[in-house]
Structures are given as C-alpha cells and as structure tokens.
C-alpha cells in the first residue's frame, strides 16, 4: 500500500518512519514536503516526530498552517488513515483533527525514556494486531506531552472509546507514578470520533525491528496495513 510521510522544516523522525515502512515492512513510501499542496494517491499519511518550525509559539502551531495540511485535512475528512507521532500528534491537536492540547511536561524535563503503555482500544485500524489491555514498551522523547482538555471533552473522549493508549506500569495498572508527563487520564494516544486519525506521543517507528531489541511498534504499522487491505482505508470507503 502507499504511504506518505510529511516532512516539515524541523521534522527529524521522517526518515525513521520511511525506513521502517520501506525496509522493514516492504511498503511504498513517499516523503512529502510541507510546502506541497497535494498528497497524490495515498492509503495512509504519517505526520512524524521532530521540532517542526522549531516549536515556535507552541509545538505544532505553525506546522498546522503548512500548505500540505489542507490536503491532510481533506484526506482525514474523507476517511484516510492519518497517524501523528509525537510532534505529529501535537500538529493534529493544533489542526483540530484531534481534541485537546499539549502542555509542557509536569517537571519541565524533556523526557527520553522507554515507557509501558496499555492498549485501551484494540478495535481500531491502528491497533487491531494488539490485544485489548496488552502492555507494550514504547520509547518516548518529548517536552510537551502533557495532554489536556476540558472535562466535557474528556467525558466525550472516554464515552467514544477514543483513548487508544495509556501510560501504565509493567503489570498494566494505570497509576500516577506510571504517568511520565502529567498527561490527563494517563493519555498517551488518542483517536478521533470517526476512528481514522490517531495521535500518540510514543514512537512506534523506534521499536519496529529486531535490531533495536523491541518490535512492539511494528504491530501498529501492520494494523494499518491490514486495515487498508481489508477495506477500512480511504480508497475502499470513498467509492
């Protein structure tokens, strides 16, 4: 299937994503410059991690106004699979494709660590190869991953099963100590109500091959491939 990885000025995980997709999963990948206005024919889009526009003003605030984002908005609106990783998640929030906003981590530190994350919802195009409740190990690397939203939105997010990943202990219990950044409700990953847009702070592309001693992230990409191949992607739903 055809993937597009958006490259913003300051993206630094774009090539990692492209590497995993092309060399590990044998996918057709195109790097798409943020100044382009068209995505072309794609099945899925990745907004990669990094520091787009130097995180000026707020993380993702400038990137969400990039010319390519009109095409990403339209792609998402018509059911295309969109995944935002780390800075990509921040961009999706700023773009309004996902609800809420990111605050600086509690403790103010840039956190670069491996954390345990619980799969809260395995019934999504992004997580169908995981088990519900499964604990996976994901690397995180961010200064602003402290998810926040208002109580009404949080209630809606919970009711719609939009919380996909939550920070947890190794045994799967979701505790305050297991929350690295102060994120509301330990939220590590969130989808939109329609279910075709996912944002997550952890980096699945950094744990998707045996060489790195952790392949937990590979199942996320494989889930998306499976979803598109079995008809949950844009091409099939749009016709």
């Amino acid at each position, binding site marked *: 299937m055809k993937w597009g990885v958006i490259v913003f000025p300051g993206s630094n995980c774009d090539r990692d994503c492209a590497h995993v997709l092309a060399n590990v999963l044998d996918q057709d990948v195109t790097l798409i410059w943020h100044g382009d206005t068209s995505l072309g024919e794609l099945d899925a889009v990745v907004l990669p991690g990094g520091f787009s526009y130097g995180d000026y*003003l*707020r993380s993702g*605030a400038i990137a969400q*106004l990039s010319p390519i984002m009109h095409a990403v908005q339209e792609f998402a609106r018509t059911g295309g699979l969109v995944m935002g990783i780390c800075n990509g998640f921040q961009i999706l929030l*700023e773009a309004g494709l996902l609800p*809420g*906003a990111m*605050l*600086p*981590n*509690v*403790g*103010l530190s840039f956190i670069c660590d491996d954390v345990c994350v619980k799969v809260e919802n395995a019934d999504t195009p992004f997580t169908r190869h995981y088990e519900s409740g499964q604990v996976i190990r994901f690397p995180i690397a961010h200064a602003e991953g402290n998810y*926040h*939203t*208002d109580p009404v939105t949080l209630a809606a997010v919970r009711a719609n099963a939009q919380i996909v990943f939550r920070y947890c202990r190794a045994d799967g219990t979701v505790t305050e100590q297991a929350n690295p950044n*102060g994120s509301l409700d330990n939220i590590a990953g969130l989808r939109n109500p329609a279910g075709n847009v996912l944002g997550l702070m952890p980096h699945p592309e950094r744990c998707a091959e045996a060489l790195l001693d952790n392949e937990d992230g590979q199942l996320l990409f494989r889930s998306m491939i499976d979803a598109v191949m079995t008809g949950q992607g844009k091409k099939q739903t749009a016709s």
Partner: protein
Amino acid sequence: MIRAKIHVTLKSGILDPQGRTIRQSLRTLGFAGVADVRVGKFLEIELNQDDPVEAEAQLKAMCETLLANTVIEEYQYELELHPSRHSS
C-alpha cells in the same frame, strides 16, 4: 499605524509548571510573600492601518486562529494608535 500589545497566558486552573518553579525560586531567594507566579507570552504587533475597529477585529482573529490555543490559553490585547508615517 496601530501597535497592539498582546498577552497570552494559561487559563486559570491549568497547572503552570514554569510558574510553579519560578515561584519556588523566588521563595528560595527570600521573597516569602510570593503567592503565585504565572508565565505567559507577550507579543507586539504593528498594523498598517489606523482604524481601531478593524484592527481589533483582525487581532481577535489572529489570537483565535494562531497566537493563542484557546483550549489551554486566554489572551488580552491593548491597542495604541500612532500617527501614520506619510511619504511625501
């Protein structure tokens, strides 16, 4: 010309880790009376126009769409009218 001074701050009730840390540092320095510190952003924008009504409408739109994230932040602005520079 109109110059706008804009303050963007975290909404009350939203934890401000920077402000909390600065408050603690000030107390460490001996400023025992510091009850709270909130950190925000200050922007100055110069607009090429003299109509305060139009300027305010533009500023509001700028704050809502880019300068502030209204999920977590609020904004205030004040306008200063400066005589236009006329080229002769």
